[in-house]
């Protein structure tokens, strides 16, 4: 690794939603490694929103961060109850500087199978969930006259056969633009930006598998932790 000055986040507090696995977990680890206190929010549900809501994946990530010398607190509230996540963060650390809106669900129905119920559920979590968190954290940002917010959009919004997911992810760009407009109007140092991960966790696994296939064909050793390596580079 190059010897470069690390970005310093000491004294700052970040909420990372959906941080129990995948990208959110990677963001949480990276922020913590730069001195940021992290609220590791994760319901523990599966990629499509189903599954055991009591799965405590956030605890694992918090333990990993603390093991590595960082500071983190687990939170299990749904992004649809953003006020509860914000309240938990303020209770734990007294301030919030950063919100990485990463939680999202992907319901895999193709257009011909897409139901109103599935469409609505996707928008509820991916778009209204971000609204809920940002609505709750906004007074904190305004009071501090400072905040950084990242929305996680998706290349699916360019068109990839998952209409509800795509619409929710494109909607986040309009939401980010509107929050930025509010911040500029208030003349506050609050920035809202959008990240389009060009590799989601499943994609990175496929990507890693193809890399490993290529390495095998070249007679090289297989990288055991390729997905994690890719995630770190996002």
């Amino acid at each position, binding site marked *: 690794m190059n010897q470069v000055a690390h*970005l310093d*986040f000491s004294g700052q507090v970040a909420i990372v939603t959906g941080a129990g696995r995948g990208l959110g977990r990677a963001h949480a680890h990276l922020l913590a490694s730069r001195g940021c206190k992290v609220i590791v929010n994760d319901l523990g549900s599966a990629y499509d929103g189903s599954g055991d809501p009591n799965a405590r994946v956030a605890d694992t990530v918090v333990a990993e961060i603390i093991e590595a010398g960082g500071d983190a607190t687990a939170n299990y509230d749904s992004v649809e109850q953003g006020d509860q996540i914000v309240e938990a963060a303020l209770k734990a650390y007294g301030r919030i500087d950063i919100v990485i809106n990463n939680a999202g669900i992907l319901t895999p129905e193709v257009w011909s199978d897409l139901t109103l119920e599935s469409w609505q559920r996707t928008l509820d979590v991916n778009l209204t969930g971000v609204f809920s968190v940002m609505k709750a954290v906004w007074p904190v940002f305004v009071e501090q006259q400072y905040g950084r917010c990242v929305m996680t959009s998706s290349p699916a919004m360019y068109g990839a056969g998952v209409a509800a997911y795509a619409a929710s992810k494109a909607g986040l760009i309009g939401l*980010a*633009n509107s929050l930025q407009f509010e911040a500029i109007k208030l003349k506050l140092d609050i920035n809202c*930006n959008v*990240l*389009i991960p060009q590799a989601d966790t499943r994609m*990175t696994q496929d990507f890693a598998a193809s890399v490993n296939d290529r390495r095998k064909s070249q007679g090289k050793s297989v990288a055991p932790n390729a997905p994690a390596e*890719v995630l770190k580079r996002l």
Partner: protein
Amino acid sequence: MAVWLAHSSCSHKASVHEAGGGYFARLNWARSKPLFATEKEGELGAPQPEAIRDGQNDLEDFDQGDRPISGDGSMGAPSALARVFGHLKT
């Protein structure tokens, strides 16, 4: 990328970035050269669809367009209307 966007020294506002596996890129809005199909001298009335059909070269011309900034309000209707009024005056 997410961590950079979260840092106090990052001044991006309403920017959109792609990231994956060490690949990074920034997206921009691109607006074509404007096509004005409003009233012309001696030819009053609403713009006709034929004017848009015949103006495709302008709408494909991004070299003479601009890159509007989102998030600061400059990209919305007030600016577009100001352009039209400016055009009508000339």
